[in-house]
């Protein structure tokens, strides 16, 4: 009986011991979830169709798309003026403006103007704060 609990760990392969154990526990839990929630899993397609039907696609995918574009452009733009953080500044201004416009319900000129001011002042202040007082380089 005592031998059953004996374990010897080879140091060279010790990096795999815990991940394998956790993977095994996850697999067992997953099987338990599948058995318990089989009806819900079978209805997954209609559920996701419902999620996408009810969501505000323009705002959701628009925000996701603009964010993706923002992240992708920041470094290439920043590489034009290395170590100045201008990539962040130049990309953040239109990003804030676009996401703001996307999230607005009505777009009267007054609201758009205040958004425009926020989208210039906000990123510029943050860029100044991190570049000068904090000495942290942005992209």
């Amino acid at each position, binding site marked *: 009986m*005592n031998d059953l*609990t*004996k*374990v*010897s*760990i080879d*140091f*060279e392969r*010790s*990096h795999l*011991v*815990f*991940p394998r*154990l*956790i*993977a095994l526990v*996850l697999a067992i*839990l*997953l099987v*338990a*979830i599948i058995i*318990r929630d089989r009806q819900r899993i079978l209805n997954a397609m209609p559920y*996701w169709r419902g*999620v996408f039907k009810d*969501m*505000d696609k323009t*705002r*959701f995918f628009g*925000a*996701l798309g603009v964010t*993706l574009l923002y*992240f992708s452009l*920041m*470094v290439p733009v920043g590489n034009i003026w290395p170590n100045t953080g201008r990539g*962040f500044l130049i990309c*953040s201004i239109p*990003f*804030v403006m*676009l*996401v*703001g416009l*996307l*999230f*607005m*319900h009505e777009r009267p000129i007054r*609201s758009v103007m*205040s*958004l425009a001011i*926020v*989208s210039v002042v*906000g*990123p510029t202040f*943050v860029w100044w704060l*991190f570049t000068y007082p*904090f*000495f*942290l*380089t*942005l*992209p």
Partner: protein
Amino acid sequence: MLELITPLFVLLIVGGTMVGIIFGSIPGMTATMAVAVCLPLTYSLGLENGLALLLGLYVGGISGGLVPAILLGIPGTPSSITTTLDGYPMAQKGEGERALKIGIVASLSGGLISLLVLYLFAPALADFAIKFSYVEKFLIILFALTVMAALSSDMLMGIFSGFLGIFIALIGTYDISDGGNGKYRLIPPGTEYWLDGGFSLLPVLIGLFGLAAILEQAELGVPKGHSASDLQVKERSKFSFSIFRGQGTNVVRSSLIGTFVGILPGVGGSAASILSYTNAKTFSKKPENFGKGEPAGIIASESGNNGLTGGALVPLLSLGIPGDSTTALLIGAFTLQGIQVGPLFIGNSPDTWNAMIIAMLIANIAMFAMMYFAIRYFAKVVTVAKHLLFPIILMMCVIGAYTINYGIMFDVWTLLIFGVFGWVATKLRLEIAPFIIGFILGPSAEVYFVKSLESFGDLSIFVTKSWISVVLWLLIIGSVAGSVMLSRKTKTSL
């Protein structure tokens, strides 16, 4: 101790508390989000000053939730969920300001009582935990995960989420500095360059609590803000402290319930306020008045959720286990300054410990002063347009993720990956709190587990090492069994 209280220290607490109240007051924004967004500001502040800001945000964020809960009937944060039940009916009767002030005084009481528990209890627990070997440390983590999962809305999903968090935390190298062999595991081919050290903690947290929350709002079409005319802040009857006469037991009981719930790892403020409210109703002489504008309901809910603030710091500062998602972010602030929290923290860093206690005390007083005397102005925050706030928050999330490792773009992509994951996870009914705790504690759990086996070469050591191991196993089994019984009881009563 007094030399810690510099003007900058106090200014950061007061400023943090104010920003926290603003975040808490806006439905859809939480204390966790406030801490996540402001975390990068702590880089250059040093540990004590950085923590001052974050603790102010934490206390303010939890307290601010009562404003929309009372004035609009919408909880600003999940922890104010039961404040709506009596706060909003009072506001509709023209007692909005009175209800707010009752909530503010109750919040202060809850915050101070939980701070006292933190001050007395955390050092004692840490002293006890210093004696723990790797075996007991591993079991403590296992216990934390099972408690959290047991208290999740779905225990099986809670346990799965916790283990998934551990699994994802193991991606990368088995760190030599932790006694590992320095080899890669779980890394897809071709991604070794980025995933060498695994996913960084802060971008993961910021993604889960910042980006995911905004994606959720975007999915709902970014619900329109409220206009000033929606606010039920008329004043027909004045607030008086006499309303607290006969409420001493309610205040102390609710604060202690909140503190206890805070000590349990990963259990959020909503559980604290619901438990406090239910108890207040059970022990009340007029339970029929609850839900119709009963001040005792607001007192219970608000002292309960603010009781959470000190309680959640107990396991963090004595064991290194965060009590809730906001304190999980505080681990990030410690990591930024190269300090590890755990049983040795209070003894080794008395200045930081004292600074945290003072910061919590000042934050509670500042919260009370600001909200009590300027509640009419804070009430207007509810009407701030989300289209102005959300893009700025997204931008701050990017800065937080980018600057964590002094400029690694992969951390920004991590933010996006976990932001989307957080949104998908809620749709799949995964539990975010156990996931986070699993992610934070996963690497330590691995070290404790593997090193225990390397030292003793026997699995039975996890039971036979000491009487503490036996007690911990009993607690683990008890928490799971209790949860199963509770869920069966709920099913049969439905």
